[in-house]
């Protein structure tokens, strides 16, 4: 068809394609070197003298922890649900809340150690994902969207109305991870000293968690599970016919996503000392979803980039005061118009998008446009 136009428009993409080819063909040791370098780079971020450039208005290590680190992790979790399995979840914040509340409640009531609560909270978040998913995952896309949205609100309002978990006052006095006094020092930061002023040690925890999540997510993506997810995303009926137990895999995606959301909640609550139900509004779910799609749904580096931008830009431009949220809204619209596949889309997703709809189904009434290119498949 009109490939020339497409190529011209996507010269940026073709540059990335080149980079990606090199990357895909690079020897393993090179790739691992880069992975390690990236990890070290991420660890060094709070102490690199970037503060004045990256964050003139807010303390840079604090910003790295929240919102940047937290958003990146949440986006990685949501990416498994939305990007991999193609399930539209508008209530992801619920799992984040469940993780945080577990730490807060167990930590303040029983004085349990932070590290004991972490696995419990993650497990409970995963269980709540299954509990929510079991009755609702048989619903189609948009019904699932509103039901998950409702679930997010139910969790928040229930927390607000339940005095046993602090009600509207939330829970103060949440324990930090245990300190290691005189612990090792990295980049001038005592990395195991979990105080209140220095956010860097908490940020390191998030980086490690993030690395773990990425490794696991990559392994799932390339396994039978990942292939099942992309089959479901592409065409659920066809996948079912081919013998993929779609419900089971959708539930798995939900549980894994929920576990990651819960883990993020625990580590976040481990820093902030007190939580209140208002920390978990619907708009946070929407923001994380925006981050996933903006960055390139389904592609881990893209999703991380998207989350970084969504978290960082409004804080970087605090100087613009109130105008920054208006600008953020406009940027979202413009990005979706000019690069609907996201900043760094995954290759597979791009191919899917070119052919059809990229899994989530297309809008109706899309025929008759000047550059829809391919003739419409009438037989369906």
């Amino acid at each position: 068809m009109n490939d020339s136009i497409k190529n011209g428009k996507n010269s940026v993409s073709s540059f990335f394609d080149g980079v990606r080819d090199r990357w895909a063909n690079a020897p393993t040791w090179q790739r691992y070197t880069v992975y390690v370098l990236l990890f070290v780079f991420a660890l060094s971020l709070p102490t690199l003298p970037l503060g004045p450039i990256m964050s003139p208005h807010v303390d840079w290590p604090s910003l790295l922890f929240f919102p940047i680190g937290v958003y990146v992790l949440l986006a990685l979790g949501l990416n498994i649900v939305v990007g991999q399995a193609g399930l539209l979840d508008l209530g992801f914040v619920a799992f984040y809340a469940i993780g945080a509340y577990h730490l807060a409640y167990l930590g303040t009531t029983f004085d349990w150690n932070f590290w004991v609560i972490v696995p419990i909270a993650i497990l409970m978040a995963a269980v709540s994902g299954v509990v929510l998913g079991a009755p609702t995952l048989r619903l189609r896309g948009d019904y699932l969207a509103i039901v998950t949205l409702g679930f997010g609100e139910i969790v928040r309002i229930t927390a607000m109305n339940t005095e046993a978990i602090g009600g509207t006052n939330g829970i103060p006095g949440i324990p930090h991870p245990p300190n290691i006094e005189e612990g090792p020092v990295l980049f001038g930061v005592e990395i195991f000293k979990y105080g209140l002023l220095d956010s860097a040690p908490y940020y390191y925890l998030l980086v490690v968690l993030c690395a773990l999540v990425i490794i696991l997510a990559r392994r799932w993506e390339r396994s039978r599970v990942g292939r099942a997810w992309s089959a479901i995303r592409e065409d659920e009926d066809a996948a079912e016919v081919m013998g993929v137990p779609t419900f089971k895999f959708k539930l798995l995606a939900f549980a894994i996503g929920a576990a990651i959301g819960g883990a993020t909640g625990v580590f976040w609550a481990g820093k902030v000392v007190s939580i209140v139900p208002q920390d978990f509004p619907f708009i946070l779910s929407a923001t994380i979803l925006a981050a996933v799609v903006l960055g390139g749904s389904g592609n881990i580096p893209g999703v991380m980039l998207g989350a970084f931008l969504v978290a960082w830009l409004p804080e970087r431009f605090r100087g613009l005061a109130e105008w920054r949220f208006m600008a953020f809204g406009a940027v979202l619209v413009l990005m979706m118009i000019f690069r609907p596949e996201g900043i760094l889309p995954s290759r597979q997703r791009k191919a899917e998008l070119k052919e059809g709809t990229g899994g989530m189904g297309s809008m109706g009434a899309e025929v008759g446009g000047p550059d829809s290119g391919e003739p419409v498949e009438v037989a369906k």
Partner: protein
Amino acid sequence: MRPRIARFGGALAVGTALTLGLAACGGGSDTPKQDATGGGDAAAPASITVGFVGDLAGDNAAIVIPPRNGAQLAFDEYNAKNPKVKIEFKAYDSKGDASTAANLVKTAIQNDKISALIGPAFSGESQQVQPILEEAKIPSVSPSATRTDLASKGAKYWHRIVANDDVQGPGAAEFAGRAITAKKVFVIDDKSAYGQGLAQAVAKTMGEKGAEVQADSFEATETDFSAAVNKAAAFKPDFVFFGGYYAQGGPLLKQLRDKGVTGRFMSGDGSLHTKFIEGAGAQQAEGTLFSCPCKIAYAFAAKDEKAKTFTETFKTKFQGQLPEIYATEGYDAASTIIKAVEAGNTTPEKINEFIATADFEGLGKHVKYNPNGEIADTNVYIYQVKNGTVEAVGNSKDATLG
């Protein structure tokens, strides 16, 4: 060809790694150790910075901007006297969000090196910021955070210049019991940390006084309060108390009156704003009572010469704005810090020591803090809407309705 390029790439990568690693380490060790406490330096600096954290652009900004302006006025007056140590005043907008407030306070401490903080404005924010201030040893005076349990955490650097909800609630209830002799009381709250605490305190005291009490709540995002209103209409109370902010309070009163709930309406400091009258409509708002552990300058202007002067100065400085709720408290909080600096205390530690011993007559009240950070003055004042404006009725202990 390929292997060579690959090897080159690898070498490049390792090289970059080393450089980066070195840079990182270098960056780390070069960063000067930040001295958050300010040390015990004897030489007085030319100026110190005082921060303000609160919702300046969010949904409840209308009750946070006045204390900001009040504090601004106090510092401007002080700096105009050309003192030895000038005070820079810097406001941070948290939009009322606790996590944002915590991040901003860290910034204020580490980047802007504030010596003292006025705020945070709300109780939710205070809850998260309090331990940070404690660790950084920065004194704070909040002009408006009234939730009771904030003072029960043993914080040494935290103070507030308003009495808490456990003072205001019984104060309001005592007044209502005496001046209105309410028998059937309906209490509504907006599920905010502030509103719920206040409403519960009122309900408790009224119940102890032998009144029949019923209660309901709604979420602050709602606009339709029919669940609470219908419940009230069925109960037919002669006194309705609302714990919450003006944005809901005004429309709530209107909906109550439309459903034929005629009992006397009263609310706390969060609703004490001219926007309340606008939201309820002047006709419905007439006669509404408010309690506040604060002295609102313009409402007291007729009774108090100091309040009158302050109102005039404030209006001149801020383009005709009235010194709404907590403007006086913002001014007094700033005065506390100014007194400390005038006495030669410029480090956070010293200022904190001074605050503990502060004892002077402020604009709105006698300023003296208890060891737990609470203000010693526990007067609660009653206000009433008359002819479309808020007027002072008097102290809750002895005020009567004319």
